[in-house]
Structure formats: structure tokens, C-alpha cells
């Protein structure tokens, strides 16, 4: 009973965290066909901004409950600034290049951002633990879980719903889908593809920074955290199918539950299981679970 409960809760919490990180990555790929290596840096910038402002906020004796709003606000500002700077400053000059070139460009941006983070925040750890402990814990059977983690699941569900609703039930979403389907035809029909690219990239950057800001209270924010998560996020979007938000959701669930199962039943395989699952999926569906295989244009 305890074991099943632990695997389920741990798996879903981990999946929620993974989806928050992977959503922005897959959205950017779906629309812009850019496999954005710098996405990990958005996560790190969100985490550093969140942790440093939460520290200042609590030091000032402000009402603790509003700190959650601060985390969202921090992510929005960080995502907007960094997203705009990178898309307008770098990427717009590179559109139309081969996908491999874009990977190299975003990898370069990742390295620049990593050094910028070090320059701004140094190498010492930052903590923002107050929002994590503020919500207390819930005992189920003989196991206790942090309520913050349950909140993370709820937040992820809201983000997933908003993304689905925006893409499928709004005019802007339909326009975005037309760009995903065929950017040249969409452009020929009067869609401002460049503007769509900018908006998408900023939303993707916000999602990355938001994942970092929401994670900061439960971790020690240290140099290199962005690079660590980008590998996991790639595994998730590859399993789900590059560019598919629904695929990222399912991919995150598969990875999260597999990892939790491994930690409880076979801890030594924890490192292997994520990539083992990825290999298994790719062996049968090389395009991922939810991506539709399409003919290449010549």
C-alpha cells in the first residue's frame, strides 16, 4: 500500500515538474522548429530571480502568502526580458537556417547565459525555502508529503489546460497551429509569422523561467542547474514527440512514474530507466509517441 502510494505520488510530482520544464521547449520547437538548448538557462534564470527576490521579500517581513504571486511575477518579467532579448537580438537573424545550425546557435546562447548568471549571482547557493515549508505537509497512510508538491501538481494541471485551451479553442491558437502545420502557407495567407515567432519564443521563455521559479523553493539554486534539467527535458519531449504539447505531458508522466518505480524497486537503475524508456519508445516510434510523421519538403 505504502509502496504503491509512494510510487504514484512521487511519480506524479516529478512528472509535473518535468512537464513545466518541457512545455516551453516543445512549444518553441513546434512553432519555430528550433531545438532550444538555451531553455535550461531560462529555467536557471527563473530559479535565481525567484530565489533572490524571495530572500529579499521575506527579509523585509512582507506577508508570506503573497510570495507565491511573486514567483509568478518574477518568471513573467524574466521570461519577457530574456525571451525578447534572445529572439530579437539573435534568433531573428538566423531564421530559415538548418535545424542543426539553430542547435549550435542556441548552444552558444546557453554558454553565454551560463556565464552571465555567474556574473550576476556568483557561485554561492541561493535559498528560497519559505514558500516550500509554508504550506506544511499531509500525512497519507504512514507517509508524509509536502503540500507544496501537491500545489505544483495543481499548477501544472492549470498550465497544461491553459496551453491546450489556447491552442485548440482560441483564434490565436488556430493561427499558431497554422504556422506549426506550414509556416509558408500561413505566411502566404496573411499570418505575420515573425510576430508569431516572437510571441511563441517569449511564452516558451516564460514557461522555462516559471518552472525554475516554482522549483527554487525546494532546492538549492546553484550554478549549472539549467544544464542538468535540459537533458531531462529533451528526454521528455523526444518520448512525447518533438513539438507536441500533449506528447510532452504524456512523456513527463512516463518518465516520472518509471523513475519513481525504479527508485523504490531497483534504486541502482534510476539513472538508466529514463533513457531506457526513451530508447524503447524510439525503437518503435522514432518520431515519438504523439508527433505525426510528415514527408520532407524538397
Amino acid at each position, binding site marked *: 500500500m505504502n509502496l504503491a502510494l509512494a510510487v504514484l505520488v512521487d511519480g506524479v510530482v516529478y512528472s509535473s*515538474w518535468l512537464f513545466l520544464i518541457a512545455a516551453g521547449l516543445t512549444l518553441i520547437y513546434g512553432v519555430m522548429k528550433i531545438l532550444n538548448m538555451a531553455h535550461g538557462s531560462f529555467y536557471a534564470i527563473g530559479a535565481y530571480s525567484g530565489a533572490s527576490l524571495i530572500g529579499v521579500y521575506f527579509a523585509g517581513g512582507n506577508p508570506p502568502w503573497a510570495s507565491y504571486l511573486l514567483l509568478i511575477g518574477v518568471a513573467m518579467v524574466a521570461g519577457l526580458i530574456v525571451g525578447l532579448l534572445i529572439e530579437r537580438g539573435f534568433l531573428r537573424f538566423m531564421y530559415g537556417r538548418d535545424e542543426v545550425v539553430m542547435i549550435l546557435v542556441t548552444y552558444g546562447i546557453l554558454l553565454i547565459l551560463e556565464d552571465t548568471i555567474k556574473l550576476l549571482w556568483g557561485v554561492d547557493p541561493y535559498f528560497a525555502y519559505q514558500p516550500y*515549508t509554508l504550506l506544511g505537509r499531509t500525512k497519507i497512510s504512514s*507517509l508524509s508529503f509536502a503540500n*507544496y508538491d501537491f500545489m505544483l501538481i495543481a499548477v501544472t494541471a492549470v498550465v497544461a489546460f491553459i496551453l491546450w485551451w489556447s491552442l485548440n479553442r482560441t483564434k490565436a491558437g488556430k493561427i499558431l497551429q497554422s504556422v506549426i502545420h506550414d509556416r509558408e502557407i500561413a505566411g502566404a495567407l496573411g499570418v505575420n509569422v515573425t510576430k508569431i515567432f516572437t510571441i511563441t519564443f517569449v511564452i516558451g521563455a516564460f514557461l522555462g523561467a516559471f518552472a525554475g521559479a516554482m522549483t527554487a523553493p525546494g532546492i*538549492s539554486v*546553484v550554478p549549472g542547474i539549467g544544464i*542538468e534539467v535540459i537533458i531531462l527535458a529533451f528526454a521528455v519531449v523526444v518520448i512525447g514527440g518533438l513539438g507536441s504539447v500533449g506528447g510532452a505531458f504524456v512523456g513527463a508522466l512516463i518518465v516520472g512514474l518509471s523513475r519513481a518505480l525504479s*527508485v*523504490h524497486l531497483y534504486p541502482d537503475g534510476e539513472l538508466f530507466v529514463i533513457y531506457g524508456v526513451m530508447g524503447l519508445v524510439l525503437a518503435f516510434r522514432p518520431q515519438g509517441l504523439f508527433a505525426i510523421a510528415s514527408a520532407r519538403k524538397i
Partner: protein
Amino acid sequence: MLKTISKIAVCGALALGTVVSAANAADNYKLGLVTFLSGGAAGPFGVPAKNGADMIIDAINAGTLPAPYNKVGMNGVKIDPVYVDEAGGATKQVSEYRNLVERQGVNAVVGYISSGDCLAVPGVAEEMKKVTVLFDCGTPRVFEEADYKYVFRTASTTTMDSVAAVRYISEKVKGLKSVSGINQNYSFGQDSWNDFSKSLEQLNAGVTVSTTQFPKIYAGQYGAEVSALMVNPSEVIHSSFWGGDMEAFLLQGSARGLFDDQQVLLTCGETALYKFTDNFPEGTIVGGRGPNGIFAPKSDFNDWFQKEFKARFGTEPTYPVYHMVQAILGLKLATEKAAAAEGEIPTDEAVASAFEYLEYDTPAGKVVMANGNGHQAIQEMVFGQVSKVDGELVMKEVVRYPASCVNPPNGVKAEDWIASGFEGAVCN
């Protein structure tokens, strides 16, 4: 005529080169210092170690240290540090080492926190015949698998941490029936758990292992591991976590009440004591990889050292700082012991001979180069438990273990020594 002029020019250039070279040798002592300046190990280890190097080199160059370190610089020659970032892996470090020796022309190298780097660099150091002092890495394999002439390590191995940790919990934890482990999935984490669990078998055979977790290094998320430790409870959770991983584990475990009924033992916990004070559960068993920081023995040297470091960097010195300082002090003593006259920089061969079996005092007490045929240091080991009195951090139940009690004798492999039931250990 032209040939004569050319010959004179060449001879002149060579002579000038020799003079300049000699002058350089006499003007400054170039010391290569390798430590993490970026990445996850920079915050807890690399940068504090660099700060320690900066401070002690300034004091050495000013000649303000107490005897026997009161001679200015290295035997009268001022030290000029050359820093290298240790990030990037062992292959990169081997190239960086060659650069330091061949291009920078350093007189010696002090460095390396990563055990992987400490296993990769000594071979090149021997090839290049350059005195190299490993200052922080813990793997016992360096001097167990090979003999080196020019390579030294002035800090103890991780074997000492694990053996002392087992002795400590056997003595201090009442009703010890089971332990669990959570260690990073790389050599340091695996070696630490291996030594700990094998020592436990020898010292406390009835104690069982509830669960062993090996999450990926820098994983940051330990929800499932915390649940596994709750599902399989034990009296003590052993961990060699460090840096962000250790802090995240403590945060996530505390928020879920993991440490309410289980006592956590952190062999590297001392590095986070000051920046993370509020989040250490009461009773956390903490080690500092030797008698360092809060565990350093009382002495005028240590009082000065702690006061000076805090005044300059705004925080207390932790164990990587002590490790760096004792490496530089050991090198200074060996260099001055080997030198025939003031202002002379002795050969690497002479320094290496003088370094063997050296015994010297440091802010962390006595360092004895007793193992690895005089190339590997041993020190005493200390464990204590975190407590807070009026919000201030204090250590209670502190136990000091003599070096001869927690380190294998010279020439004996750590693994064999543990398997023999610590043959030859002297604990009183």
C-alpha cells in the same frame, strides 16, 4: 664578418635569456592553483578554496605568518599564483596541467577537488617531474594503485570519514539496528558508501541496511528517494552529499518530516553549516573531512586564521579552505627544507625528497605525511551533532578520533584494512 656578428648576437641573446630566466626564478615563484571556479562544485568547494589560497599567499608574501612559516614567500621568493578552473573533466585537466608546466612555467602545482582529476593528473606530473600537491580529493586509490615521486596529498582520504562515521554512530546512536544510505551516483558517493557499509559490517555486524539510494549527481529532486527512506526506515541515514544536492535533500526531507524519526549523518555537512544553518535538523551528525572549520583544534594559528578569513570574506572558513591552506603550507616547508640558501628555488627532486614523511602544524592541527610512502597525509577525524542555542549554531557530542584509529597503516590498502577488522588501529 657577418657570421661573427650573428654568433655574437646569438650568444648575446642566449646570455640575456639565461639572465632573464634566472632573474625570473629569483623574482617570483609561480604557483599553479587548480580549483573549481565554475559549476556546481565552485560554491561549496572551489571558490572558498581559492579564497583560502589568496589569503594565505598574501600572508606568506608579507611574511606575517608565525614560525616556521615566517620567511617571506617561498624561501624568500614571492609567490605569484596562476589559477585554473577545474571544471571540464579529467581530459581537459591533463591538458591544463601541461599548459601550466610548459607554457606558464610554474614551479609547482597545488590543486584538484575531483577524485577523477586526482587519478588522471599524477601520471602526467610524474612524466613532467613537477612537484604536485593534491589538496582536497578523497579517493584512496591515488597512492594505493601507484607509487609517485613528485605527487603528494596533504588531506586524508575518504576512508577516514567512513570509518570514523561508523565508530561515531556505534558509540552515540542508542539502539542502532539499521542504517540507510543516500549517496551520489559517482565514484565519491559509491566509495563513501562502500567504505561505510563495509566498516559497519566489521564494527557492528548486527546492523542491517534498510535501503541504499544512488541518485544522479546534481539531480536536485529527491521526492522519490525521501519516500523510499520513509518506507524503509532506519535509525541513521548516511550521506556523502555535498553542495546543492545536500541542501536540496535536507530541504525536501525536512519539509516531509523525514528527519523527525531518523538521524541523518552528513560526512561533508560542515561546508554548509554557516550558509544553511536554519535548515539543519537538530541532531544532524556532521563531519568536515578532517579537523577543519568548527572542528579545528584550538590554537593561536587557527584563531588568527578564522578571524582573518571572516574579516576578509564575510564567512567562516570551511574544510576546502583548510585543505588548500595546508597544501600550500606543506609545499612551503618542503621547499624551504630543500633549499640550500636564502632566495634559492630548489629543484623539484629536492623538494619532493624533503616533502616525504613531513610533519607540520596547520590551522587544522598536525598533518603527518605518513601513508603512501610519505606522500599521503593522515589527520585526526571529528564528528559532532548540530544543535542550536538561541538560534546560534553549536556542536554537541563532539568526538575526536586519532589519525591512527581511522586511517590504514602505511602500505595497507583501505579496503584490505577494513576487511581485516582495522588491524593495527590505535584509538587511545
